[in-house]
């Protein structure tokens, strides 16, 4: 059974329902690449948090970043990618 990147992302983020999460856990047992792909997501998250901490400890840069990034005017409309 091929598990899509989207499915693994939802599993990683805790957003899958119980049945689909069970299928991912089963797939992980029989396909080592599933574990590797999940590990890649975890590593990426670790790196993002490390980046956030570095910015944060250098004079409130994260605050300025969040201010820009979360400003509603910057976001495109619904359905935009």
């Amino acid at each position: 059974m091929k598990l899509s990147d989207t499915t693994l992302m939802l599993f990683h983020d805790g957003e899958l329902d119980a049945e689909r999460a069970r299928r991912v856990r089963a797939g992980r047992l029989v396909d080592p690449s599933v574990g590797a792909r999940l590990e890649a997501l975890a590593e990426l998250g670790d790196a993002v948090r490390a980046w956030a901490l570095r910015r944060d400890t250098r004079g409130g840069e994260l605050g300025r970043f969040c201010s820009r990034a979360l400003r509603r005017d910057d976001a495109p409309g619904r359905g935009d990618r």
Partner: protein
Amino acid sequence: MARSSALSARRAPPRRRALGPEWCAPVSQLPVNTRPPPASNRTDRAAESERDRELILRAQRGDKPAFAELVARHQRRAFAIAFGLLRSEEDASEIVQEAFLRVYRGLDTFNGTASFFTWLYRIVKNLSIDLMRRPAWQRELADELSGEQVDALLLSRLSAQDPEHSLRRRELASVVGDAIDALPAYHRAVIVMREVEGMSYEEMAEAAGVSKGTIMSRLFHARKKLQRALFARYVEHTERLPAEADER
């Protein structure tokens, strides 16, 4: 920590508000920069939101114990958000107190179109950003920590027991930082909300004012872009290795 005392010393008078102890108990120190917990399941979230709505309705009718329960249910998460931005327990505690004061004053304006936490999250975030925009706050932090101190602090917080691993993560963080800076703002926002603040898709959708599907798509594409950037850096690094060996 020295920074906390320095920050509190420069502000006079302190912005302590008259929230009684029955509303806002002390928040114990939270672990920082740890991996956010996975989102709880939908059933739990629905039950939590329903309980929040009940408490808000009671609080709107003047039921103070109901408001105290709202505070107790959300103050740790509110503190975590503020602390994640400010890195100061004292500042974060003040922001949380101020946020709950604003919530209390604005209870009548809450109409339930967004979750209580989303409302609180926006208040905490905006108050934190307002504080960080103050020139004095930025100057003092920059003065207090040299570049080496910042790196030492970072390393100790990340993985002090394994320097090689820490260096690798620092390198990764640098690459990720370049890649994040290159992302459009709406991709940066979902990455920060999910990976740094540990928000669920539903919370992100409410905060950004878009659908959960849009959040999922943005997060997917943002991560792919970051992974491609990391991969490109990895290829660049591995191609450089043989040349460096030849030079030696």
